[in-house]
């Protein structure tokens, strides 16, 4: 009996391993989940792109659900997702704040003129410190922040219509109703 059990063991181990490998085929090894989900959005104070004498802090948007979109004029995938934000802004579903990450302000302004400006306002993160605090490791990234200033979602990479419809918008609506 004991012998038979030991003989089956390698087969069981092999099947288990295969199961893990199969599951792994559908996982994205590069994606880094954020430890900030469910935690307060890190505070900061940075100048506004179109009004440099003014600065913005996330506190200002307490009581509202809002999106924070990290972008830069040198970022190619940011162009891909930008039309989505343009339509989102037009539909006035949720305010979107842009975080201009490690960019040249002039280039940034030109980029918005050329591609459209869906942002409530854009904040300049010249040295990337704000991005660092938010765990940004590649642009673009988008955060959903709720009324109490807690991060509820982090999307890495360009936003897609599918992700917007299936995940982001339902979450936003849920949070907006939550009160």
């Amino acid at each position, binding site marked *: 009996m004991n012998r038979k059990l030991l003989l089956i063991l390698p087969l069981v181990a092999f099947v288990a391993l295969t199961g893990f490998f199969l599951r792994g085929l559908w996982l994205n*090894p*590069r994606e*880094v*989940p*954020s*430890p*900030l989900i469910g935690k307060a959005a890190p505070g900061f104070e940075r100048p506004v792109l179109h009004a440099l004498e003014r600065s913005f802090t996330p506190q200002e948007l307490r009581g509202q659900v809002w999106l924070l979109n990290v972008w830069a004029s040198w970022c190619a995938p940011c162009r891909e997702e930008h039309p989505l934000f343009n339509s989102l802004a037009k539909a006035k579903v949720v305010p979107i704040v842009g975080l201009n990450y*490690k960019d040249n302000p002039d280039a940034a302004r030109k980029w918005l003129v050329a591609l459209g400006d869906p942002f409530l306002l854009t904040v300049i993160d010249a*040295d*990337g410190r704000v991005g*660092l*605090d*938010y*765990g940004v*490791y*590649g642009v673009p990234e988008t955060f959903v922040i709720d009324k109490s200033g807690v991060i509820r979602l982090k999307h890495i990479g360009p936003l897609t219509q599918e992700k917007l419809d299936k995940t982001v918008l339902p979450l936003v609506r849920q949070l907006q109703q939550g009160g």
Partner: protein
Amino acid sequence: MRALLVLCLVFLACAAAAYAQVPASPAELERRETAIAAELRCLVCQNQSIAESNADLARDLRQQIREQLKAGKSDAEIRDFMTARYGDFVLYRPPLKAGTVLLWFGPFALLGLGALIAARIVRTRRSSVALSDADRARAAELLGRGREDGA
């Protein structure tokens, strides 16, 4: 034998001395910076540490480490800073948590198991080496005869 014991003791004494505290100096801070950076994973070039990587993010994070070291933060505090923002994924040395107990103790548990199996094998083999009494008597008889015949 005694000489060997002395050698071993000298060995251990030197090892203890090596762990004596070294005062913080620019060289020491740089050493610590490299040591910490070598154990943090670059999230852009994910198969490099931030010590090796030339990515912008890696440079920013190295700068962050440098500043924190100058501000007197400990190695653990700096690592916590990183994991608060990027999660455990950024640590090349997996932290010891409930989920990684199997990882850290697994190899030594396997070693224990291997040692047990090896011991069992040796024990079963060893018992066959010892001659039974009947065999011993027979051997004595044969050897005795051999001495008469051959001598």
